[in-house]
Each structure stands twice: as structure tokens, then as C-alpha cells.
């Protein structure tokens, strides 16, 4: 008989509202995630000089600007048929893994982490950085902050800017690394592997050793059997920077593996009349509505999906952590909240990959650029953003002026599954009209596990309002707007 609105959904990058419709018995009829955002990048890309796109599209998301910058730069390589030099490619991959590591750290400690580290039913004054300080100690929080800062400073140096990098050009990068700089980077690389290990240990100590949390992770409320999508290398191993797009079905079998040039054969986007976000799905299945299972084309991306599509991880410690996770949860893992764990495993991989790259002699070479000579017409590029598979596609005239652009953005790929998660969590957690603040936060948790970034998801729609919960009765009467201090 009530409608609940959680407005705004906090601690995620973007804006959103959760709307819950209750039936006469006081149970949840249906919960919706509403994203009120649109900016129209696909349109105003038209007319732009294509070499500006890596800087323009990074403004889709200031949380993962490097992901857009890189997807766009790779699209330029493709458009001009001009591969980056070996060194340029390695510099890009180095920057990219540094970015993944610090972005994941942000989520683990500041955005999603508080739910676990401080506790899902604690008060709102505590579920934030201040609560984290109380729980793990100020010096550990400072350690996280200073680690992120050092990583971001390296990307400032290599990319020009950390937020909205500028160094990506077709065929390479705009600046090399010199040996003094490399020494500095090596130092941070050493610290960062320690940091990633520390994070995994913390996660095990606080989360995995607590049965209550483990039960929460594996509870049906946070479980969906969907398809999963992510980039893999030629040996079906995790890769963030490059590879083929692999999709596995809910039983973990390969459903498809394709090159980015075929993306439109596999992915379509559904439009709903009540939100600005579009819902991608696997094209062959057609849109079946918000349901999971093998017949539904709903798929998921981001850390958990990436581990689900990977046969193994290419670095040693990450592989160990990956095996540990599978031995506990099986594979594929359908528990949404396991995204937090997968994120920590990926931090280990990034840190190890950074190590490999800084110790690679190629990285110091001054040959950082191939100069395009061909006439542009169409290009596509893909990377794994922290929040999932990210695809750019541009068509230009012969001067390299964009005529058309299409973008399939990380969070957007998860939109349908997020909608499922919220609906399911609400149904499980709100019973007989019993609604309390801790429960509402747990609905939000379902959402935050994806680390959704609605600046991304709705690059089509302009950034606006975070989240709310509105309670309606079945006749559509607004009964209540739940405040967090009920």
C-alpha cells in the first residue's frame, strides 16, 4: 500500500532514484531504478574533429575518464589504421592499469566498502569515510588516500591530467617516459602491490571471516543467473586494455567470442518509457523484459562478470586469489555482492601487471608514435572500464570530422541486471510493510555493488539527481516518501 523513494542513492557516481511499489499486503510489488540523466554525447559528437574525441568523451565520466579516453584513442587507431608503437602500447597499458587500481581502491574503501567495513545496518552518520576511519584507524585510511594520490599523480604525469587525460593520439601517446620518471613509477609500483595485498587481507579479515556477511553475499536476494561479458586475451585470460569480447551463459559456457567490429551483431539496446537509460541486451534473444535465466538476453559486466568470462588470470597472485574465490563460491558466480571481492582480486592483477610493465625495457623507448597516413572513415574501440565493457564507434568524413558516433558504456551494460537486483532485493528485504533504514540501505547496496556510474550509463542523459525511495500503493497513490531517519 505504500511507495518508497530513496532519493538520492548516495555513494555512487551519478544520479538515480529507487522507486518501490508496495501491494495491499505491504509487500513489494515491484522496485524500479530510475536514472534521470541525459547529455547527448552521441549527438554533439557530430561535427567534432575526431582527434578531440578522446578528450570530449572522457567528459562522459570523470570517475573513469581514462576508460573513455583509452577506448576513444583505440578507436582513433582503428579509424586511421595506425597501430601504436610497442612502447606507446605499453605506456597506455601502464596508465590504464594504474587507473584501474586507484579507481577500484576508491570503490572498495569509500563508495561500496562502507557497507561492509562499517556494516550494512549502521547509521548514516557512520556509513562513510568517517565510519571507515573509526573502524580501520586513521593511519590506514591515510594510507589508502596517499596510495591513490601517488597512483593518480603518475597518471597526471603520463596523461597530462588525471581527470580527463590528454595524451592519447592515433598511433601512440603524446609523451614518453624518461628514466627519472620511471624510477619514481617503480617505487609506487612496489608500494601498490603491497597495498593490493593489504586490501585483500583486510577484505578477508573483515568480510570473509564474518559468516553474517558471507551469508549476505550468497543470499538469494543478491543472486541472479544472467549472462556475463568481458574482454579476454588470446588464452581467455582477463585483460583490461585489449582483446576479444567474450560472453558466457548462466552455466558458465561460452556463448560468444567476438571482435569489437562485430559488436552491433551481438548487442542491442532496449528503451523503456520511464527512464533515460537504455538497457543493452544480447541481440539474438530479443528483449524479454526484466527476467534472468538462459532465455533472457540480460547480461552483466564489471569485475564479477570479467572473472566469470576468464578461464584464468594472467598473473600469479591474482590467479591464486581467483582460485580461492572460485573454491568458495563456484563459477560462474551469480552473487551480485561478490563484485566487491572480484574487485579486490582485480586490484591484485593490476598491481602485478603494473610491475611487469615498469620492468619491461621497452617502456623507456622514445619511439612513442606512428603517424597516420590513411584517410579515415570508420573506427571502433573497446576497453574494460572498471565498471565493464566500454565500446566507442565513430564514422567520419575524409577530413576526420565526426559524422556519427555510438557509445555502449560500461554501467549501461549493467542497467538491466541492476534493475533486477533492486527489484529482487526489495522483495526479499521488505516484508509486510516492514521498512527500516537498514533495509533501505541494503537495497541500495544491491545497487552499489556494481559501482554504477550513471554519468556513464546515461551519457545519453545529463547528470542529475542521485537516488530516492518512493512508496506507492497499487492504485498509484503516493503514500510515503521514506526519509532516512524513520
Amino acid at each position: 500500500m505504500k511507495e518508497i523513494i530513496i532519493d538520492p542513492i548516495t555513494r555512487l557516481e551519478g544520479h538515480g532514484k529507487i522507486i518501490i511499489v508496495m501491494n495491499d499486503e505491504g509487500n513489494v510489488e515491484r522496485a524500479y531504478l530510475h536514472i534521470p540523466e541525459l547529455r547527448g554525447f552521441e549527438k554533439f559528437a557530430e561535427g567534432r574533429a575526431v582527434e578531440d574525441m578522446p578528450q570530449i568523451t572522457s567528459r562522459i565520466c570523470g570517475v573513469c575518464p581514462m576508460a573513455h579516453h583509452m577506448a576513444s584513442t583505440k578507436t582513433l587507431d582503428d579509424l586511421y589504421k595506425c597501430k601504436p608503437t610497442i612502447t606507446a602500447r605499453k605506456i597506455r597499458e601502464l596508465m590504464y592499469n594504474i587507473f584501474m587500481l586507484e579507481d577500484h581502491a576508491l570503490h572498495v574503501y569509500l563508495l561500496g566498502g562502507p557497507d561492509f567495513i562499517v556494516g550494512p545496518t549502521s547509521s548514516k552518520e557512520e556509513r562513510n569515510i568517517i565510519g571507515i576511519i573509526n573502524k580501520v584507524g586513521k593511519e590506514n585510511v591515510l594510507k589508502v588516500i596517499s596510495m591513490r594520490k601517488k597512483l593518480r599523480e603518475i597518471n597526471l604525469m603520463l596523461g597530462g591530467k588525471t581527470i580527463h587525460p590528454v595524451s592519447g593520439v592515433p598511433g601512440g601517446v603524446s609523451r614518453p617516459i624518461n628514466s627519472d620518471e620511471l624510477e619514481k613509477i617503480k617505487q609506487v609500483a612496489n608500494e601498490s602491490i603491497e597495498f593490493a595485498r593489504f586490501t585483500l587481507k583486510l577484505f578477508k579479515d573483515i568480510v570473509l571471516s564474518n559468516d553474517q556477511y558471507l551469508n549476505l553475499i550468497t543470499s538469494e536476494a543478491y543472486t541472479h543467473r544472467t549472462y556475463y561479458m568481458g574482454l579476454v586475451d588470446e588464452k581467455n585470460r582477463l585483460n583490461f586494455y585489449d582483446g576479444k569480447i567474450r560472453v558466457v551463459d548462466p552455466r558458465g559456457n561460452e556463448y560468444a567470442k567476438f571482435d569489437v567490429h562485430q559488436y552491433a551483431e551481438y548487442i542491442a539496446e532496449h528503451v523503456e518509457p520511464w527512464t533515460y537509460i537504455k538497457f543493452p541486451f544480447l541481440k539474438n534473444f530479443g528483449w524479454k523484459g526484466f527476467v534472468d535465466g538462459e532465455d533472457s538476453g540480460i547480461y552483466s559486466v564489471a569485475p564479477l562478470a570479467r572473472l566469470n568470462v576468464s578461464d584464468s588470470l594472467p598473473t600469479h597472485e591474482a590467479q591464486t586469489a581467483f582460485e580461492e574465490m572460485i573454491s568458495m563460491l563456484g563459477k560462474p558466480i551469480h552473487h551480485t555482492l561478490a563484485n566487491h571481492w572480484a574487485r579486490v582480486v582485480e586490484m591484485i592483477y593490476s598491481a602485478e601487471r603494473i610491475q611487469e610493465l615498469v620492468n619491461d625495457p621497452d617502456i623507456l623507448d622514445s619511439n612513442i608514435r606512428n603517424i597516420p597516413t590513411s584517410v579515415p572513415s570508420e573506427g571502433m574501440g573497446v576497453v574494460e572500464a572498471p565498471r565493464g565493457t566500454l565500446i566507442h564507434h565513430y564514422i567520419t568524413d575524409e577530413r576526420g570530422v565526426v559524422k556519427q558516433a555510438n557509445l555502449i558504456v560500461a554501467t549501461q551494460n549493467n542497467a538491466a541486471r541492476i534493475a533486477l537486483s533492486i527489484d529482487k532485493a526489495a522483495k526479499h528485504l521488505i516484508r509486510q510493510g516492514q521498512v527500516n533504514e537498514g533495509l533501505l540501505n541494503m537495497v541500495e547496496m544491491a545497487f552499489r555493488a556494481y559501482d554504477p556510474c550513471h554519468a556513464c550509463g546515461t551519457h545519453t542523459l545529463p547528470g542529475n539527481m542521485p537516488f530516492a525511495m518512493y512508496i506507492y500503493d497499487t492504485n498509484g497513490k503516493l503514500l510515503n516518501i521514506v526519509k532516512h531517519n524513520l
Partner: protein
Amino acid sequence: MNNRPKVAFYWCASCGGCEEAVVDLAEKIIDVVSLVDIVFWPVAMDYKLSDVEALPDNSITVSFINGGIRLSEHEKVVRLLRQKSKLVVAYGACACWGGIPGLANQYSREEILERVYLTTPTTANPEKIMPPQDGYAKLGDVKIEVPTFLPELKPLDEVIDVDYYIPGCPPTPEVTWNAINVLLSGKLPDKGTVIGASNRSLCDECPLNKTKPENVLIKEFKRVVNYSPRADTCLLAQGLPCLGPVTRGGCGALCVKANMPCTGCFGPLENIHDYGGKALSFLASILDYENEEEIKREISKLPDVSGLIYKYTLPKSLLKNLLRSVRK
């Protein structure tokens, strides 16, 4: 509670980079948190809009708002924050002048909706469903409010009164820190002031400034597509359209240090009424030809003049009525 200043952060049509920029204050953020009470910050804290509604008018010492105004809902929230705040600061290029999403003002709302929801190659929308533009949507029998997509993107000061501006896309941590100190100092500058950044041009703080000739003259505009800039010479003198001469300093020439031209994210220097107009004027004047045909030829090679000179400021441009008149 106590008499510490109360601070709110809010984002409109933002990419979130401005929020990250605040987080990039890193250790300093803990100092800030200990000096002020944050009463609203959706990205980082669990306070809801209803908490803001419950505050008395003018009780927030300062609200920092980033992102441009693109949805009806943004207008509502910023008006609420204005009512509850003593000071409002436009934080970042989007809030100050519209920013990169402001390039959308070249196109009408209808063209944007059509592209996004009907014609992109992956959109599967046979029934031609559009997000509702009449204020609400129906979920079964439940009607929910859905904000409308405004006809154009507006900078913050076209919707509410703005006291101060912090430039940059995003503002750097140094600029943010300077601005916070200005606000906390108790000696408030004149209303309308740009705070935190420099009052001199970017060239002034650029490491390549000493290699910039007194009078720059070039034979052609180069593009980074097929030109690899040298790190030892002023980029403008190399022929790249670097906007340092008309851009406010404060970032330390970040892009130039990465061998890429300044695109103007710190916006206009004082006394410039129209950033793009000024940029256009200076770019044209360095083109070293006297004859009309040659001038035309070189200009025709520029791929995107509006995106070059108005990358961050199109919604603030004096071209506004011209744009409105030609939008479909």
C-alpha cells in the same frame, strides 16, 4: 550542533570529475572535514534531499555546485540550495559556462532525443518509445515524476544567483584549495569573482613561454592527428592551436606539459566577454597570409572551429540567439 561552517556539494549535468577533483584534495580533505560540517554530498555521504529541505533558509554557509543545468530537476535542486545557502559557488567549467556538454546547444532537444533513442545503430526501439517529456511516467498504475530534458544546457548563473566561480575541467586540487582558503579567510572578494585560479594568462605559467616569439606567425594550423608536437618549443609557434594566450592560468599548463595544446578549460581571462570570439580573433591574427584565397584555404583545413574555440563555453557565448534561431 556547533558553529562550524556548513557546506553542501551538488552535481547537476556533471561527469563526476568535479566531485573526484574534490576527493583529489586527498589528505587535505580530512582537514576540510574537520573544519566544516558537510550537510549534503550525494556522491560520498548518505544524506538525502529531504535532509536539505528540512534546513532553515540561509543556513548552509556555502554550496558548491558542479555540472550544467540540463534537466528540469537540476533547476529545482539548485533553487532549493540557493534558498538554503548564504553563498553559492559554481564549481568547474560546466557550472561556470556549460562545459563540454554545452556543445549540445548546437543541436535541438528533439535532434538529441532522436539520435539517442531512435537512430544509433544498436538501438532496438521499434515502438519509438521516448523518455517522457511531460513531467511524469507511468509504472503500471503508479505515476512517477520524470524530469524533462531542457531545450538547452544552461550555466548555473542563468538559473540562480551565483556568488563565486571556480574554473577548470575539473578545477585542480591547488585551485580548489586556494578557493577554499579564500572562502574561509573571512575576507570575501567581490561578488562574481573567479576564485582560486590566476589572473594572468596560461602562457604566463607555461614552461614553454620563453620559446614563444613576441609575434607568433604561422603558415598552417597543425593537427595532432598527423603531427607529433616537439616538447621544446611553444606549441602555438609550432602551428598547433594552443589557447594558452586567452585562457586563465592556474592549472600550471598541464596539457602543454604532456605535449598537447591547451583547449581552454580554465575559461576566459578577465575582461573577455566571449571566450570563443577572443580565441577566434587571436588564432586568425597569427595566420601569416595577406591574401584572401590563401587565408581561406588555411582556414578551411580547420576541422571544427566551434569545437575548438567554444569547447567549454558555447552556452555562455554571445552567439546564443543566433544558435537558437537555427536549431531545428
